[in-house]
């Protein structure tokens, strides 16, 4: 039943083609295509949970020549997050974008973006990864332009340029690997790569390219304008999913492929950049005057947290403690995916209702839009890392790894970052719950408010109480000699 692996990629791709053929029905096809992709991912996940990592060589070529698809615990978790988030965002967008004339363009690009994401999480060789990364970047850029304003075009252009630079670096790295080892199949490379100049240069280039795409400090500057000026559903997937794709690749490279090459120093440097990102991003979020800009800076900070794990993972001996830390990293990424998409969708609701998203003028939001205000509060809880959110558990394990490895330097970073996140979240909630007329009264709960609150509940309740599944899935690996 390994043929299942084709569906999470094929379904959105076919839907994209259908949307091109029947632009008038684009909303329908878009939502239906997203739903069917969700179904496909669920089937794949069930297969992986039941029988471990699975693999499919397209067209019957042996690995190394054809297109290899692989699914293991990590890819399944990323797939589940992206498909659930994109499902909710699609429902939201069916209301939000229906008012726009560029509806059919949106849905084509949307489905291509999902195709690229799913293919990226399932790819088993480096060249396909490059192709999916490029496709993902391009569809993301065009989606980000759909806002149509001058700022959004400018931001998207910067996004495009830097994205291309990143992919270029990645591609050169891939070429070096091919020259050095004669294969691009990741399972084969995981066994073959040894420490040496080729590996070093390739890893640096590929990581550098991915750092741009994941917006790690100081390469983050393109993110806040690009994410905050895009239409709300686009901002949601950019911050929640697209950034995570680059991070996912870094994890694959560092933990499976180049695990022999990676040194403690290199991990420490990324950790330090992550630490600065946490502090700087949170601080900038606290200063932000607009809701969506605040959310975008908060993404910079949250990406920083994820990089804090790298030096810890490098220092932990292989075994249970390391798996626990890795699980926490994934859980943090997942929680942020759900929480941040909820946050951006809620911001979009406010923006449509109030006509602006200036934080200081949001008085009365809680009365006019109680569900949306509740969404912001829940998402905020997850961003700070308070219980019962998944990020609370992740942060607990992060601190735990800090104590186990004795890398005390991260302790103040995590502490200050948490307090700053508390400050920017409650600054927003203070304004939103204050009396005022910033947002006009509404008569009923809008259909677009529901997906947002469901995402926020997933981040806080579901990932808080049922997070054990993450730790059960993460050790199922298709690389580095696991069960695969």
């Amino acid at each position: 039943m390994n043929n299942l692996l084709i569906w999470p990629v094929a379904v959105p791709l076919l839907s994209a083609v259908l949307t091109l053929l029947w632009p008038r029905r684009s909303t329908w096809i878009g939502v239906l295509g997203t739903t069917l992709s969700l179904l496909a991912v669920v089937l794949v996940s069930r297969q992986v949970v039941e029988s471990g990592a699975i693999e499919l060589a397209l067209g019957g070529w042996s690995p190394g020549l054809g297109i290899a698809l692989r699914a293991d615990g990590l890819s399944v978790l990323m797939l589940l997050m992206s498909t659930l988030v994109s499902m909710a965002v699609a429902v939201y967008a069916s209301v939000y974008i229906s008012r726009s004339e560029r509806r059919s363009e949106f849905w084509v690009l949307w489905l291509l973006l999902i195709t690229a994401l799913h293919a990226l999480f399932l790819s088993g060789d480096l060249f396909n990864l490059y192709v999916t990364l490029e496709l993902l970047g391009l569809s993301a850029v065009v989606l980000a332009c759909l806002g149509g304003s001058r700022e959004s075009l400018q931001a998207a252009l910067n996004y495009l340029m830097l994205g291309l630079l990143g992919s270029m670096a990645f591609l050169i790295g891939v070429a070096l690997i091919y020259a050095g080892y004669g294969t691009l199949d990741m399972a084969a490379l995981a066994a073959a790569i040894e420490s040496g100049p080729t590996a070093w240069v390739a890893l640096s280039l590929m990581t550098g390219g991915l750092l741009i795409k994941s917006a790690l400090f100081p390469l983050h500057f393109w993110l806040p304008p690009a994410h905050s000026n895009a239409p709300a559903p686009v901002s949601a997937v950019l911050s929640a999913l697209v950034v995570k794709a680059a991070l996912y690749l870094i994890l694959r490279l560092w933990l499976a492929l180049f695990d022999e090459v990676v040194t403690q120093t290199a991990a420490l440097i990324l950790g330090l950049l992550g630490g600065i990102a946490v502090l700087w991003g949170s601080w900038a979020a606290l200063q932000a005057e607009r809701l969506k800009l605040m959310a975008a800076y908060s993404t910079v900070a949250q990406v920083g947290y994820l990089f804090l794990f790298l030096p810890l993972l490098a220092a932990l001996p292989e075994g249970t403690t390391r798996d626990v830390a890795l699980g926490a990293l994934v859980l943090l990424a997942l929680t942020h995916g759900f929480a941040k998409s909820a946050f951006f969708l809620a911001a979009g609701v406010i923006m449509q209702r109030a006509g602006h998203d200036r934080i200081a003028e949001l008085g009365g939001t809680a009365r006019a839009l109680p569900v949306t205000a509740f969404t912001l509060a829940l998402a905020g809880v997850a961003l700070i890392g308070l219980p019962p959110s998944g990020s609370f558990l992740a942060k607990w394990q992060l601190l735990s790894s800090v104590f186990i490895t004795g890398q005390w330097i991260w302790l103040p970073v995590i502490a200050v970052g948490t307090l700053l996140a508390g400050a920017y979240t409650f600054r927003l909630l203070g304004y939103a719950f204050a009396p005022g007329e910033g947002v006009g009264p509404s008569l009923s709960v809008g259909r677009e408010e529901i997906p947002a609150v469901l995402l926020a509940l997933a981040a806080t309740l579901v990932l808080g109480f049922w997070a054990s599944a993450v730790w059960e899935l993460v050790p199922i690996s298709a690389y580095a000699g696991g069960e695969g």
Partner: protein
Amino acid sequence: MAMSVWLPVAILLSSFIPGVLIFFQPEERRRLRTWLNLLGALIKLLLVGMLIWGVFHEQVFESRWTMAPGLEFVLHADALSVLFVSLSTLLWLVTTIYAIGYLEQTPHRSRFFGFFSLCVTATVGLALAGNLFTFVVFYELLTLATYPLIAHKGSPEALRGARIYLRYTLFGGLLLMIGAVWLHTLTGGVEFVEGGILQYANLDQSTLRWIFLLLIVGLGVKAALVPLHGWLPQAMVAPAPVSALLHAVAVVKAGAFGIVRVIYDVYGVEFAAELGVLTLLGAVAAITIIYGSLKALSQDHLKKRLAYSTVSQVSYIVLGTAIVGPLATIGGLVHLVHQGVMKITLFFAAGNYAEALGIHRVSEMDGVGRRMPGTTLAFTIGALGMIGIPPVAGFISKWYLGLGAVEAGAAAWVLPVLIASSLLNAAYFLPILYRAWFKSQSAPWPADKTAGCVRELPDALLWPPLTTAAMALLIGLFAAAPYSPLEWAELIAGREYRQ
């Protein structure tokens, strides 16, 4: 077997479910909301009754749920949990009735009662937490549930008070979490066990001292230990029922209860004394007791005076915990209940003065006893109890604390603190009573809303303070009766010092 698993969960859900349902009720559905509130409170009372009986007969109540590798969500009822659960449940019922009366005709009541129920859920969760991890979870949830209650009025002062509260408590919660994680990595899990677990763990003593400091500072924020008490007087901008709950059961008690848990059931009181950390804690408690009373003396604002009085009184619990010996333990634990019952009476009364006559300041209280005899009677009983005059409950606490100090050989510094504090209590409470009963009205009431009414106040506002005042009197008078707080505190002390 089944009941032992579901009972703790059911106790949590009995306030959580009504809370969630209430959020979705439109403002005007007052009757349904009241029903949900009271039904939840009564069911909880019934369930807690079952729990008390079970724990008294040494039954084990426990539910576990794995949240992450090595992190278990544990609800567990021991004698100490029962003490705090019963207090919260009983006072929640009374406060709910009071709040329904108090908030009549004000906006956002569904939001208020929703968070009110969540706040009680978090408090009860703290009481039932079976390990340090679960305790931290509920400690943070309590912060989240109380913030909207303090900010409820939405006025700039309310928002400011809530912001200050949040600054202190998020900081405290963070330190608590860091301490808890650290301890967790050393021991692999911190279950609450009567008598403590760390004395057998053979860990580095100075590390344990550092962790103790982190935990106690984190908990001390909510318990309002000086110098971490700054939020409490600011939080009195909250509506009266919130202040009542905050000062009697929810927030300050959560901190004090946490300190009790850490010392008795994590470190073990004798081991903590061996580490030398209790002397410092005792000194901080003594300073807090005196400082709070001194500050209370100079406050003209009634609720502020009561707030500083709370700062002082809650540290009696900490003091009792910091002195090694069963009698001091009993004194500290029983004060957990006694202070709650007395202080809630005082805040109900203060709310009534403000509600009926617009009185917010002590200097406006001349002759109020004749106008509002019921409320003033309740206030008087509460105040006399705080001073420690028999037979009101506060006397019992102070008596056992004094005996405990003598037993532990700490009389030389504890007795002067107790005496000085009692004198100060008298100095800031007796003038109020004198003004209320013996002076005649000197100026018109600031805002007389009940002019021309036959009764001083509606039943929902008058009976709660009278009920809690009667409770304060009865648990003092019948302290030796079975199931009284004192008996229960003796039961706990017996189990803590069993080895």
